């Protein structure tokens, strides 16, 4: 009984893998001369972050680049440029950007900080291009702090109390 079940699963997996490979290869060869790649920036290489971001909130994430690329239709060919790793206070961020001519048609996140799970969690929901800007913004000097209404003890522990002591 167990044997039969196992065979069924194996058959199913085999069919699934063949279908997946066929479809994947077609997509890959289509990238060269169509804007299809741009509408599927998360479907290609890296399932880690970009793929994770897709199902939840990030329908907007592809929107800024996607429609424009589709509109440009049969325009210039798509090429992908891998950026240098950028260091942020929480680790390195590296992206690969696809261009159709001079237009950005897709962004693939290759590397995000993994020191501490807070940053990974940021990577999961916030769209990847926004993620980098959020992380970058953390290094800016702070004039004041917005937070949940403090108690007086909370205030004394906060950055805001230090700011208020400045001359």
């Amino acid at each position: 009984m167990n044997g039969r079940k196992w065979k069924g699963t194996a058959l199913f997996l085999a069919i699934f893998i063949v279908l997946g490979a066929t479809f994947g290869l077609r997509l890959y060869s289509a990238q060269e001369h169509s804007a299809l790649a741009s509408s599927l920036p998360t479907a290609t290489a890296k399932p880690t972050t970009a793929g994770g971001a897709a199902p939840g909130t990030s329908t907007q994430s592809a929107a800024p680049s996607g429609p424009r690329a589709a509109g440009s239709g049969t325009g210039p060919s798509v090429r992908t440029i891998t950026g240098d790793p950028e260091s942020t206070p929480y680790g390195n961020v590296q992206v690969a950007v696809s261009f159709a001519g001079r237009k950005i048609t897709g962004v693939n996140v290759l590397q995000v900080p993994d020191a501490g799970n807070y940053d990974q969690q940021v990577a999961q929901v916030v769209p990847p291009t926004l993620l980098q800007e959020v992380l970058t913004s953390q290094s800016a000097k702070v004039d004041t702090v917005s937070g949940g209404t403090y108690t007086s003890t909370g205030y004394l522990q906060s950055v805001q109390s230090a700011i208020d002591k400045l001359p």
Partner: protein
Amino acid sequence: MRFLDTVMGIPMSLDIRDAGDHHAAAKEAFALLHEADAIFSPYLPGSQLSRLNRGELTLETTGPAFLEVHELAARFAAVSGGVFSLQAAPGRWDLNGIVKGWATQRAAQRLRVLGVANFVLNAGGDVVAAGGSGPGTAWNVGIRSPESPQRMMAVLALRDMAVATSATYERGLHIVDGRTGRSARAFASVSVVAADLTVADVLATTVFAMGPDGPRWAAERYDCSVLAQLADGTVTDAGELRRWLAPAPR
């Protein structure tokens, strides 16, 4: 020039970057905040809110400020389908979700009328950023990380904008979904950026109470942006958050 006062039991700070002496203007701004506390405090037995709850006043016999805030709050309650609520329990008025934002916005407007153009007024974490911190420089407003009062989850560069944050890390589960009367638990922190702090404050509370649908709901109906962290640590956004993120320092 920096000023610090405690109003409503909350430390409130004012940082004025205009040249000159602004003690008189600061004093007036803080007086407005104390006045709001005297009207709306649920802790002061003589406040209009307390007297209304004891049946000594009716809505009609409260003052114009009370009526104004009540009307604003009623509008938000209607638009949010009752998520934002004017009553902590049936028959017990509670306007805490709007009063701090409203009073701080009012104090900021008074400062502007008095000729102060560049200041940041921070009422226990709710912020009005007027003008800039220096010539051609926006105010950098950090959004506190729920994990630590010393860490920022993001920094916003704001000019003539306001930001309010609702969170559980200071006061526990104190925000209630008006539809169910239950404590809201979906978020650790919700920050809303808008031109007006009254709007930002009410929306931060409402989004927090509404749960995961809240950020998009707010951004679709109001001119605002949302940065929120869910209770499980994931971060989400809505509106044009990108527009407000501070650039990297040079």
